């Protein structure tokens, strides 16, 4: 009669392991859901920030157009983080009087590009996210940390 009371032990072990499995599954899927949401949020934020930068760059370009020898300085207030992540802003001069504002985060890896039509060329710059200063000094558009 050495196997007496085995079924109680077995059922207890089984209950515990099934509960652990279910709990682990729920946690993993909730974690995945949160990660997805964070990525979507970061992308949405980068798009907003990118479009805002593009519109301000276009505004400075327009002001510079009114007088080619003018001086323009515009500071743009931007968040330092998107979805809790720091990000980078890169300005790329494209052919055909266009420029691209590229924003990226590393974790999660997201890239967002916003193109803008400009009459002046823009100096290619890469800087980390946060307040920036858009400038025109009579030759080309420039960007610096504010």
């Amino acid at each position, binding site marked *: 009669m050495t196997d007496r*009371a085995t079924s*109680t*032990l077995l059922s*207890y072990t089984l209950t*515990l392991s099934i*509960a*652990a499995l279910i*709990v682990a599954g*729920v*946690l993993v899927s*909730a*974690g995945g859901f*949160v990660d997805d*949401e*964070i990525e979507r*949020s970061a992308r*949405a*934020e980068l798009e*907003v*920030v990118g*479009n*805002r930068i593009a*519109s*301000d760059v*276009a*505004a*400075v370009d*327009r*002001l510079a157009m*009114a*007088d080619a*020898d*003018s*001086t*323009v*300085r*515009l*500071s*743009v*207030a*931007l*968040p330092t*983080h*998107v*979805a*809790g992540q720091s990000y980078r802003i890169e300005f790329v001069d494209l052919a055909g009087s266009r420029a691209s504002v590229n924003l990226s985060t590393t974790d999660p890896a997201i890239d967002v590009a916003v193109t803008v039509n400009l009459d002046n060329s823009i100096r290619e710059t890469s800087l980390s996210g946060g307040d920036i200063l858009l400038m025109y000094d009579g030759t080309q558009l420039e960007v610096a940390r504010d």
Partner: protein
Amino acid sequence: MADVGRSTDRGQLLLLAALGMAILFVALALVLNTVIYTENLATRGSEIAGGGESLRYLDTARTGLGHSIEYVNDNNATSHDALVGNLSATVPVWANASRRQLFHRSRSVNVSLVGTTNGTHIDQDAERNFTNESGTANWTLASDVTGTREYAIEVNSTTELESFPASSAFNVTVDDGSTQWRLNVTENGSSIVVGVRDGNGNEATCSAPSAPVWINVTAGTVDGEECDGLTFREGVSTPYEISYFNGHNVTGTYSVIVDNESVATSPGPHLLDDGAGNPHATPAIYSGRISVVYHAPRLFYDAEARAAPGERE
């Protein structure tokens, strides 16, 4: 064997799991919060809203300068120095008024006159033939000209005009030494025909039903109607001279401002001094430049604007 019946230790696994999920969702709530903040940025207008306000100010200042130039040219135009002095005194008046107005909206602005181009106002303000002061029909109003503005001719009657087409019709010739732009005025029945032949050889005519006819040469209108093909000095390079030919074949008045100041300082032999009869030459300011500084909380804008009212754009 453990006492599975002890109720205080039960459900620990569930508790841990709930705690983990709570932390995850709090983190998610924080992230979504920052998204709300950023999206809020998108709905907020840009600080300079496309640069509209500052550009409008620059444009208003340019218009103000234009009006100031017209005003000083029309009042007390005794010498170029006096004109520049009057303009320098006029600009700060409205510049200061606009500065006070914008000051209340956290904008700091400054307008200052940085330069002027002297010119000459050539004018015939009483009806007569378009001959020079001694009655010569073919003569040059101004030479060595690079800019002409507010050039208006009024033809009062058809009596003197040649019939269309006519080789001896009155004409305005703009000549750069190799190419000519011509505008002639003839009559066709009771209507008046304005013909243009530009420096590229293109010809066009516009007509007005009866005299008097206003021809705005620099604006390209005949009796206020746009005249296709009437584009002043099209195809002619600078500097050029403006001459009248067959000036005896037309009567009326005219007025033009050119950027050659020496015509005003020595008007002879074709023109008279101001007040001595027609046609006469008066000192005038041809154009001016202002420096405009516009300061908003996040924007610094420093630009120059030029005004030459009535100049062909």
